[in-house]
């Protein structure tokens, strides 16, 4: 069962972010990178803000990201969340991708154990509209 209920809207890809979501459907987390100056950017944009090239490529993210910040939500702003509180929101940072960040959820960590800097790895879950979305779990440390 997915971390959030199926009533929560899934992504509706736009012209700019469709490649991101297309890769997600193949269980691949990739970020947009400028093909000219090789700097990452996210969310996707049509042109590189650094060198203004329109050419971009999609580069696989490292296996591990880290919790950059988070919140534990206790308020049901969406009716489907009533009775399913609290849940967490995490902002996952990928330093090696010029700090590209994703808003997501940690699927396996109790609220009181979530910490900034915690290493996490991606898991794929199905949103209500059937699309795969990237969520995260705590990285197993040996």
């Amino acid at each position, binding site marked *: 069962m997915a971390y*959030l209920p199926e009533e*929560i*809207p*899934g*992504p*509706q*890809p*736009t012209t700019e*972010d469709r490649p991101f*979501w297309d890769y997600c459907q193949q269980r691949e987390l990739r970020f947009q990178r400028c093909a000219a100056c090789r700097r990452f*950017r*996210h*969310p996707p944009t049509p042109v590189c*803000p650094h060198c203004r090239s329109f050419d971009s490529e999609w580069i696989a993210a490292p296996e591990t990201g880290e919790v*950059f*910040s*988070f*919140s*534990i*939500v*206790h*308020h049901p*702003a*969406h*009716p489907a*969340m009533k009775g399913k509180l*609290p*849940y967490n*929101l995490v*902002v996952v*940072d990928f330093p090696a991708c010029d*700090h*590209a*960040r*994703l*808003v*997501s*959820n940690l699927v396996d960590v109790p*609220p009181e154990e979530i910490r*900034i800097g915690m290493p996490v790895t991606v898991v794929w879950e199905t*949103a209500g509209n059937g699309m795969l*979305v990237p*969520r995260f779990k705590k990285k197993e440390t040996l």
Partner: protein
Amino acid sequence: MSDARRQACIVGVGETLYTKWGQQAYRGEWSLACEAVLKAANDAGLAVEQIDGVASYSNDSSVPWLMQQALGLPQLSFASMVWGGGGSGACGAIAHAAAAVESGQAQYVAVFRSLCQGEGHRYGQAGGYNELPHLNFMTPFGMFAPPFMVAPLVQRYIYEFGAKPEHFGEVALACRENAHRNPRAVMGGRPLTMEDYLTSRIIASPLRLYDCCLENDGACAVIVTTQERARDLKKKPIRILAAAQGGNPGWGDGALGGHNMPVDEYGAGNGKTLAKRVYEKAGVTPADVDTVQIYDHFTGLVLMTLENFGFCGRGEAGPFVAAGNIRWPHGTLPMNTSGGHLSEAYIHGLNLVVEGTRQLRGESTSQIANAEVCLVTAGLSASPLSAAILGV
């Protein structure tokens, strides 16, 4: 005409009744907008027919052609809409109006904002900001409403600087105390203690209920014209020393988007470059500011704004407010003297412009003696935000 005579100023303010969201849904945003503009014209001693420009922001639903039709304006020479949701455009609309009257595009511009969160949607509910461009990177993960979008920034601020719950609570309490003196304030007369604050329910950690602004129905408006034209009107003109939009580079929609702001600024806010510009334009420094009306959508962002606008160093706003600096009347920087968005009403920042004007006229319910310079800020956490410095 000399520059001084052409300088833009605020000559009239008006507002409707402010209520909890939903209580004025029966009449709607258009009606509230009209009432606010008419009251502002009346306050100025200006014939309504002389209004020849309108400006608003946040995609206000009372579009110019409706306003011209309803108010019977013979000529609409200028109509401006500042892009974007939220109240970050409040002082931007003031800037547009000032530019219009100073350049001669219009003579009397009514800047207004009308909100009826019961007529359409509530900002605190999922779908309340359904025009945001990066919802794909937020909604599927449960980041539905502004408190959820802002909470991670405040969490990061706490992580970096060790801010304490009581620091945020002091912002809420200071605003509430001011609201008790303001008969327009929705939360006036409802006591709020630090214990109440600390024990209030968590909305999205670290944000408690009283860290979040209100959701209201109401409208307000100001009339902007030149100094020269102001001489024929009723009230003392309040000069717009500076009004501008701006924001740090690399922010984009910031907290209201994918949370990909520059790493070092994530928990700091995007107002620093704008602050520098408005101080330079106005020819004042933070030390010259007698009172501030800070955009208080969330207490944590108030602390960041105080730092961005140079009233204390980065990470120092918590101790700064805890020392009593933002309290009326004895603090060094009395803040949100009407009660602000936390306790007067959330009219997307324009009510803060109204209160700043009242302070410099000497008409505030929490008046600061001899107030001459007031900073008003609008937004923080997406670009562009905006700010204005008003002077007597």
